[in-house]
Every structure is written in structure tokens, then in C-alpha cells.
């Protein structure tokens, strides 16, 4: 009996302890179940003080996601968030609409990769008037009130292109044709300036003078499949097929590669491409693309955000930020 009593010192107290323990265990079990299945799992949400928009033309290049990631990284590090608004030919909205939307969304800055769409200049000006700074990336709208341009000086780029082409052309007595495919053939557009510089340098260079001709071809990108049709047309007449093709966008480079393969012109036509995509890498391997222009996407993303942040902070920023570039060959890709 004594032994029993010592076992149950005070059942009232023990009972209370048991009740509390059961309740606590049930509470813990309840919440652990909710945690386990994720009911209570809060999404890891970070809010930012500033909101930037990156508006880009998806047909222009394949590396925008990379650029966006770097821009986002830089923005996040500085208390800002970058929202990506991408235009594609199948989009309901135009680039101008995306500008309008960004303004209506009350963004604190816009990074615009302009295309040839009319009215963008006015939208840049409208945004600037509404106190929303706009920086242009890779494709400039020089007459607009954009606060900065991040990209490559078209003249320098044209010179680099010309050097590459002169190196590609064999040192013989044959005549060669270079076709530069422009998605934007406005006179003040970057691409046109690049073309002009290529033409000037090739025509004036000793190696290529008088035997290498350089011409521009407009490739339409506003509608569906237009670019493909235009490029196919270029190779359809076997008599007038150029020996060198220069492309200023990922899409045109890929279309040109496919057309050269389709028309069995591999070895006869060489492409100076734009950026690196899986297909372009394949083209490099197959010696269809002789070399391709690769830009520093990190620099592009970081500098565009930095320009906006600097403007937000100080009220001004450099009008131009240069971006490093490199012409990459098959060997270079393999080395990478």
C-alpha cells in the first residue's frame, strides 16, 4: 500500500500534468502536421522600395533572361525589384502599350530595349515627363529624353564587325558579297550606323578594297514569320547568294543558319552571328556561323540598373555606358 501510494504521489497533480501535457502535445502535433504538409509555410516574400521595368523585344536576342537575372540581382542588392515585360510578335500589346502599362503601374524606372516600333520616342518622353527615368539598352533612341544608353557605340561596333569580316575574306583576287541583315533600317538606328561603318571600313581597307561589296537587307520583324520569309528569299536565287551574312539579332542568325543548311550552302556562305544560343553553337560547330558577337550580359544588366539607381539618387547619370563585346569562334566556344 505504501508502495502504491508512493507511486501515486498526488494523482490530482499528476492528472493536471497529464492534461496539460496532452493538450500541449496535441498543439505541437497540430502545428507540426501543418508545417509538415506546408499549410503554415509562409512564402519567402521580399518587398522592395523601388520597382523597375525591363521592357524588351524577345526577337532581338536570346540572352535577355541572363541580362534580366543580372539586373535583378543588382536591383535586389539595392532595394529594388525589376519586372520583366517582354514583347513578342504574338503579343497583344505593343512596346508602347508596355511603356504605358509600366507608367500606369507606377514604376520607378524603365529599362527599354527598343525596337523599331513607332511612338516609342514619345513614350520615353512621356515617362520622363511623369518623373519615370528611362534607360535604353543595346538599342538606343537617341532623340528621346532617355537618361542613359547602355550598349555599344555603333561606330565602334561597326569597326569591330569590319575587322572580323576583313579577316574572314580570303586574301585573293575573287569578289565577295557581304549582306548585312537589318531589323531596323532607320537612318538613325544603331544597326544602320553599324552597317554604314562596316561598309566604310571594308570598302576602304586595302585587303578588300574594290573586290568586296557590302549591302544591307531589311528583314521585317513586326509580323509573324516575316523575317524567315525575307531571309529565305535572300538565298532562293542561287546566283546572288552573298558569301558573308551579318546578323544583328539571335532570331535572324538562327533563320540564316537554317536557310543555308536548307539551300545546301554550307561552306559557301558564312554568317557573322549575334549572341549565343544552342542553335548558334551548333551553327558554329558546323562552320556555318564563322563567328558570333557575344556581349557581357552581366555588364548590361548591372549597368542599366546602376544608371537608374544613380539617377534616382543624384538626379543625373552618364548618358552612355559601354558594354564589352567579343567575337566568339568555334574554338572559343569549345574553350568556354
Amino acid at each position: 500500500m505504501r508502495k502504491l501510494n508512493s507511486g501515486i504521489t498526488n494523482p490530482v497533480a499528476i492528472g493536471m500534468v497529464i492534461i496539460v501535457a496532452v493538450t500541449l502535445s496535441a498543439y505541437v502535433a497540430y502545428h507540426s502536421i501543418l508545417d509538415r504538409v506546408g499549410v503554415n509555410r509562409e512564402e519567402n516574400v521580399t518587398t522592395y522600395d523601388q520597382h523597375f521595368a525591363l521592357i524588351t523585344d524577345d526577337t532581338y536576342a536570346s540572352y535577355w533572361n541572363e541580362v534580366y537575372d543580372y539586373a535583378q540581382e543588382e536591383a535586389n542588392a539595392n532595394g529594388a525589384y525589376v519586372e520583366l515585360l517582354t514583347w513578342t510578335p504574338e503579343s497583344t500589346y505593343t512596346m508602347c502599350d508596355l511603356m504605358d502599362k509600366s507608367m500606369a503601374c507606377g514604376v520607378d524606372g524603365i529599362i527599354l530595349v527598343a525596337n523599331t516600333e513607332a511612338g516609342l520616342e514619345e513614350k520615353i518622353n512621356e515617362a520622363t515627363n511623369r518623373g519615370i527615368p528611362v534607360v535604353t539598352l543595346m538599342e538606343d533612341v537617341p532623340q528621346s529624353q532617355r537618361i542613359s544608353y547602355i550598349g555599344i557605340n555603333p561606330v565602334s561596333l561597326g569597326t569591330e564587325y569590319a575587322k572580323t569580316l576583313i579577316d574572314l575574306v580570303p586574301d585573293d583576287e575573287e569578289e565577295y558579297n557581304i549582306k548585312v541583315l537589318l531589323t531596323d533600317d532607320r537612318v538613325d538606328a544603331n544597326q544602320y550606323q553599324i552597317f554604314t561603318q562596316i561598309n566604310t571600313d571594308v570598302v576602304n581597307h586595302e585587303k578588300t578594297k574594290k573586290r568586296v561589296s557590302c549591302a544591307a537587307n531589311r528583314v521585317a520583324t513586326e509580323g509573324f514569320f516575316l523575317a524567315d520569309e525575307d531571309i529565305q528569299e535572300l538565298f532562293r536565287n542561287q546566283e546572288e547568294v552573298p558569301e558573308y551574312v551579318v546578323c544583328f539579332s539571335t532570331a535572324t542568325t538562327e533563320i540564316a543558319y537554317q536557310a543555308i543548311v536548307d539551300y545546301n550552302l554550307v561552306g559557301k556562305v558564312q554568317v557573322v552571328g549575334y549572341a549565343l544560343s544552342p542553335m548558334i553553337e551548333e551553327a558554329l560547330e558546323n562552320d556555318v556561323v564563322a563567328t558570333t558577337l557575344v556581349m557581357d550580359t552581366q555588364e548590361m544588366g548591372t549597368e542599366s540598373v546602376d544608371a537608374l539607381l544613380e539617377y534616382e539618387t543624384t538626379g543625373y547619370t552618364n548618358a552612355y555606358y559601354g558594354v564589352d563585346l567579343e567575337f566568339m569562334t568555334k574554338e572559343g566556344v569549345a574553350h568556354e
Partner: protein
Amino acid sequence: MSRRKWQDYPIQRKLMFVVLFTSVLMLISTVIMYFMINSLIRRLDTVYASNVNMTELRQNLDVVQEDLYQYLEVRDYVALSQFYLEEENFRTLTGKLSNKASDNRVMLLQKNIRSMSEDFLNYADNAITAKRGMNVEGYRQNYEKAMELYGFINTDLAELNELLFQNNARSYQTLQQALNYMEVASAALIIIIMVIGIIVVASTTRGIVAPLAQLSEAAARVGAGNFSQRIPDPDSQDEISIVTRAFNGMLDSLNLYIEKVREGAEKEQMMKEQELLMENHLKEAQLRFLQAQINPHFLFNSLNAGVQLAEMEDDEKTAVFLGKMADFFRYNVKKGTEDARIAEELSVVENYIYILNVRFAGEIMFSKEVDESALNYRIPSMILQPLVENAVNHGIRDMIGEGWIRLTIHNDPDRVVVVVEDNGKGMTREQIDNIMMRVETTHEDDSTGIGLDNVISRLSLYYDDTDVVEIVSPGEDQGTKVILRLPKKEI
């Protein structure tokens, strides 16, 4: 302190506690399960609430747009007032949306929708103002802007709704999974609580029943006659402890009583022994007293007579007579308190007869028939002479005719039989009974003082046997026979 308290609880309270505890445990488990399941079900119910809110927002936006269009088209003032009303609602609804830039798409869309909605309403207000101010171009431009934003908002709302729907569908699945887990957890909880309840009820009731069992076992042992045990005194104050203490008290009382009874019995035994001893002493005293009753007058009278006779006549006969007398009284004095041999007793009888014959001139005819082998056994002194004296005094003294007395001693195998027989007056049955019952009789002054009753009493006490003496008389004048059957006692 608390331990004592629990032990001191009455059984009723202990049982109440058990019932209350199990009830509370069940209640708590039910409440917990209710809470767990109900909270999940409530969550399930509200999973799609955000979709409902988005739909409401969208519907509200549509109404605002329709009212705006209606007013701008036909200047409908009802639509205008409706517009203002719905505009307010729309502001309230969009005011609940997040206004923070975030890496969460839902929050970012909310921020965009909220911001665009403000722009939309501003353009709508501007359009109405322009319409009122008859500014046709102004209200058209503002309306177009408003409609552009309306499109944007709708697109974002659709995306937001889609995202929310996906999130909510995931939440719903998650909650359903949680509900499944909860079912298992509830079952486990019920089992745990049941086990706890059983353990508590079993241990508590055992705490109550165990002392009872102990008590009943002890009672059974007591029933079997084991009074020496004792249940350890419990510390508690409950009813069973009281009963246990009472039981122990009862055992104590019982043991005390038994001890008293034993002591009483011992005392009684001792008293009995003392009583017997006293009785012995008394008997001894009686014996001595009876022996002391021998009348000394006879001695002195006879001696005086002898002395006088011898002095006056110097006679030989007298000398013999006095010699016999002297022997007789010497014996009487000497053997007053001692046993004697039968031979000595016989000699006393012979002396006595001689003395009587001297006194009464040879009137007494005395004969004896003695078995010599019986003469050496031991018997109380002064037995035979009183018998003969009795035969003389009450038998033949006053009889007509010649009286005789005959003494016979036989040596029977186990007893010595002594018969004193006379042919005197005899005795009635009543007389014999009176003598045998030792009714006090008076003694004549000239007798030796030891009557028949004395002899009978002494023999009875000496041998502790009443059948030692037998008196036989055929009737009046037919003589009396006193028969002694004496157990043999060697010297």
C-alpha cells in the same frame, strides 16, 4: 503535504476525481480534435476566398467601366451617380491590394493593379469632367486612356486570378493532406488518452481496493485464529484507513481480552490448587483435631484407679492391670499423630479388652482370628480400639445374655480386611446411615473419646476412599459387624 492531502481524501472524492479526470480528458480530446478538424475545414472553406475577391473586383471594374461608358455616350446621370458609387467601392477594394514591389508575382500584380486602377479612375474622372465641360477631344482621349488601362487591369486581374487559383488549388490539396494527417493524429490522440485514462483509473482504484484486499486477507487470517498479526498503520485518513485502524484496534482488544482470560484461568487454577491445599490442611487439621478429641479423662481416671489400687493393696494383678493401662495410654499418647502397624493396633485392642475385663469382671467375651501375614501393614493409629470400644459400649454393654466380640483380620490379595463383630443390640438402617454420613454424635465421658464416626472420618480422609468402612447389622438385637477394607500400605 500534497501527498498527505491526496491520501486523506475520502474514497468518494477519489472516485469523483477519477470520473472527473477521465471526463475532462475526454472533453479536452474532443475539444482538441474539434479545434484541429474545424480549423482545417475553416481554412478549406476560405481557400478560394481570394479568387472570390478577385472576381468581385473584376465585376466591380466592369460596372465602373459600363457606367462610365453609359454616361459618356448618353449623358445618363443615373449611370453617373452609379459610377461614383461603384468608383468608391472599387477604390475600397483596390485599397486592400498590396502596394509594395515584391519578388512575389501575386503581390507585384496586386501592386500593379492597384496603381493602374488609380490611373484608370483618374482618367475616368477626367473624361467625365471633360464631358461636362463639353470638351469632346478631352473626354475622348481620357476615355481611350481609361480603356487602355481597363484592358491592362483586366489582363493583370486574369493573371492574378489564375495565379491565385493555382496557389489556392495547391493550398486545398495541402489542406486535404493535412486533414488526412489530422485523422491519424486524432485516432492516435484518442488511443493515447484512452491508455492514460485506463492507467489512471486502474492505479487509482487499485490504490483504493488494495488496502481493502489487504484488510479482507487479514480478516480471513483472524478468522482462522491468527490474532498475532497486525496490518501496518496507514498514513492516510480515508475510510479504509479508519477501518484498518479500527481493525488493528479490534485485534489489540481481542489480544488484550485473550490475555486477560488466560491470566484469569491461571489465577483460577492457582486458586484451585490453593483451595485443595487448604482443604488438605483442613483435613489434616481435622485429623489432628479428631485425634485430639480422645478424651483424656478416661486415661486419668483409669490411671488414678490403678495407682490407688497398687498403692493400697500392692497387688500383682493390679500391677498387670496398671501395666496394661500404661501400655494402652503410652500407645495412645505415642501414636496420637502417627501411623501404626496392625500388630500394634491389635495389641492396644487386647490391652483394652483386658482393662475392660478388669473393670467389668470378665464380662466381655473377646475372640480374635488373625492372619499373621497382615500384621505388619501400616494403618492410621487408634482405629481398631475405637471399633471394639464401640462394640462394647453400644453393642453388648446393656444386653441381656452373654455378649461377645470377635475380631477377624484377613490378608486379602489387595486389601487387609478387618472385621469387628458383636452379638449386641444391632443397629437400624437409619443409625447406620447416620454414622456413615458422619452425623456428630455425643460421646460418653468414660469412653476413649474416639467414636465410630471419628474412625470413619479419619479412614476416609486417610485413604481418600469412603468405601473403606462398611457397617452391617441384620437388625435390632442381632449384632453389628464393622468391616474395614484397608488398602495395603507397607511400613
